[in-house]
């Protein structure tokens, strides 16, 4: 989109790394803590080389203790630092929910602003053969917590820009990468630049239906859009990027243009992201035809057949969009 900015090509994981490196260089209050974030460089190599630059004080390996890790991050944040706590999989974020949700998200409110928790929890969502307890997408839960911000990039540029914003944010942020994105390449601005929270991105323009999604599902949506383009059905694909706050304006304007909404997510649709997206859009512009697709109501097995059957793919997404547009 940003045709004027000079860009450079890098992998998603490199974009994360660059954002963290730049922000750490800029702000000495930032440090990283989590399992294998030190000399190992992170589970997805997303911190490769940062240990050599910033040392063990600022790239802190933690034991397997998610609850204390997030609690310590919250305390350090309240005391003036800006920790980036890394939780390998979102499923294990549950182990740290108490500190994140019962403490950090409520700290500013309960102290009437005396204390805040400027921390980022970086974690991963989604399925990649890792089985029932390593594949969940629970971002919808987090969206509902007052005081929490939630972002989920789908491109290297956004991983870069959203991570930078997250590390500058004054309250707790959950920053979510999808496991399948780390090895994907993309163009990232050469000059430092942030992506502000609360701005969705139109990834593909279209006229028949607005497809709203986030994270890895943006790629699925784009493939579905390709499939449907061959049938003369034109999809506008919108990447939420920021789930809380949500850019209802961009979404609503798109649906107003296309006249239909399709929401696509990898997690459960029940009380999910899509239903909230639809509700907020229609609250603004009135109802339009809408359907939603997400995981089937089952755990996500590591079994390749069952995993593939459970979560949305381009073909099933295209079929659902087709059924919406040409009922």
């Amino acid at each position, binding site marked *: 989109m940003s045709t004027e900015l000079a860009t450079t090509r890098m992998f998603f994981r490199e974009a994360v790394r660059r954002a963290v490196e730049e922000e750490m260089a800029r702000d000495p209050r930032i*440090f990283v803590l989590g399992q294998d974030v030190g000399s190992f460089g992170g589970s997805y190599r997303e911190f490769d080389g940062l240990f050599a630059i910033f040392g063990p*004080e600022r790239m*802190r390996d*933690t*034991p397997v*203790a998610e*609850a*204390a890790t*997030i*609690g*310590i*991050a*919250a*305390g*350090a*944040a*309240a*005391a*003036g*630092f800006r*920790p980036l706590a890394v939780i390998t999989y979102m499923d294990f974020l549950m182990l740290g929910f*108490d*500190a994140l949700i*019962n*403490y950090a998200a409520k700290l*500013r*409110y*309960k*102290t*009437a*602003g*005396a*204390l805040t928790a400027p921390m980022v929890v970086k974690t991963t969502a989604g399925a990649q053969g890792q089985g029932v307890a390593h594949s969940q997408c629970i971002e919808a839960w987090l969206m509902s917590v*007052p*005081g929490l*911000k939630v972002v989920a990039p789908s491109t290297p540029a956004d991983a870069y820009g959203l991570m930078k914003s997250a590390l500058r944010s*004054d*309250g707790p942020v959950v920053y979510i990468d999808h496991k399948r994105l780390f090895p994907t390449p993309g163009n990232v601005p050469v000059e430092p630049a942030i992506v502000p929270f609360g701005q969705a991105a139109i990834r593909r323009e279209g006229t028949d239906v607005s497809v709203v999604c986030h994270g890895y599902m943006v790629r699925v949506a784009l493939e579905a859009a390709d499939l449907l383009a061959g049938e003369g059905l034109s999809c506008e694909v919108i990447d939420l990027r920021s789930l809380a706050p949500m850019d209802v304006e961009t979404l609503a304007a798109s649906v107003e243009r296309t006249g239909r909404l399709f929401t696509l997510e990898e997690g459960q649709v029940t009380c999910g992201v899509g239903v909230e997206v639809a509700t907020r859009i229609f609250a603004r512009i009135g109802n339009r035809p809408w359907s939603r697709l997400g995981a089937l109501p089952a755990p996500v097995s590591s079994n390749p057949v069952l995993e593939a059957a459970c979560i949305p793919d381009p073909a099933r997404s295209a079929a659902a969009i087709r059924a919406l547009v040409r009922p």
Partner: protein
Amino acid sequence: MTDDPIGRLRAMLLIRAFEDGLSARKAHGFQLLSSGEEAVAVALASALTADDQLLTGGRSIGPALARGVNPGMLMAELLGKTAGMNRGRAGRGHFAAPEQGFFGSHAVVGGNISVAAGVALARKMAGEPGIVAILFGDGASAAGALYETLNIAALWELPILFVCNNNQLSVSTPREASNAARRICDVGAVFGMPARSVDGLDMVAAAAAAREAAEHVRSGRGPAFLEMSSIRLRSHSTTARETRSRDELASLRLRCPIEREIARLQGEGLLGEMEIAGLREEALERARAAMVFADASPYPDPAEVLADVD
């Protein structure tokens, strides 16, 4: 802060008078009071300096007062008034006065322990002076959060003092049913930190133990663990059922740490009857003044409900 015997007695008397006054105000929900545990709070506070931070669980009024938090603002906070240090929105179990060295209470049992370690980590990384003390109960000693945090604090040599106020009860559950360890502090020893158990009804012994433990932490040698045994003279909260018999309570009351310290000071000739009466009156007066201050303050405006969310 209250390093002299009379100052420490003053602090204990203030806590008792403050909580007694508060408990008479049934209207504003329930409160978690600390009668019988005053010496623990005051001993710990006597080992802390202005650079230090104290964090606690939900039973936090006594420790906050011992730390020197303004009684009027605290009373206002507990009664939901805007003159409270958190405009009355934190209330019982959540108030924080970091500029007064009280980083905050947190009513999730065990929930403040790792937060406190984070505050300690910030101290260490910033190279700032001062240590962090975290006060929790015998009930909290069963929570995984304690273990995870002890381990990391030891690994990272954080300047944090773990203090268990072992008042022998978690709501109705006796300490023996909460923790299978012979001494609660033993788990600290596993991680190589100095770990001691002391009689928290004995003001002098408790203060000495607190000073010793704080010195260790202050010297940069990593965390320490202090268990102070005490008694809970009231029911769990001002609205909770009492589970102990009248007889048991009557015999517990004979062990009151305040009366014990008064008797000691009298026995050593450091205090006379008149002075004692004077100190008692002074405490009542300070508690009354706090109440007057709180009563004069308004409740927040309902419109404040959406303030300070993000």
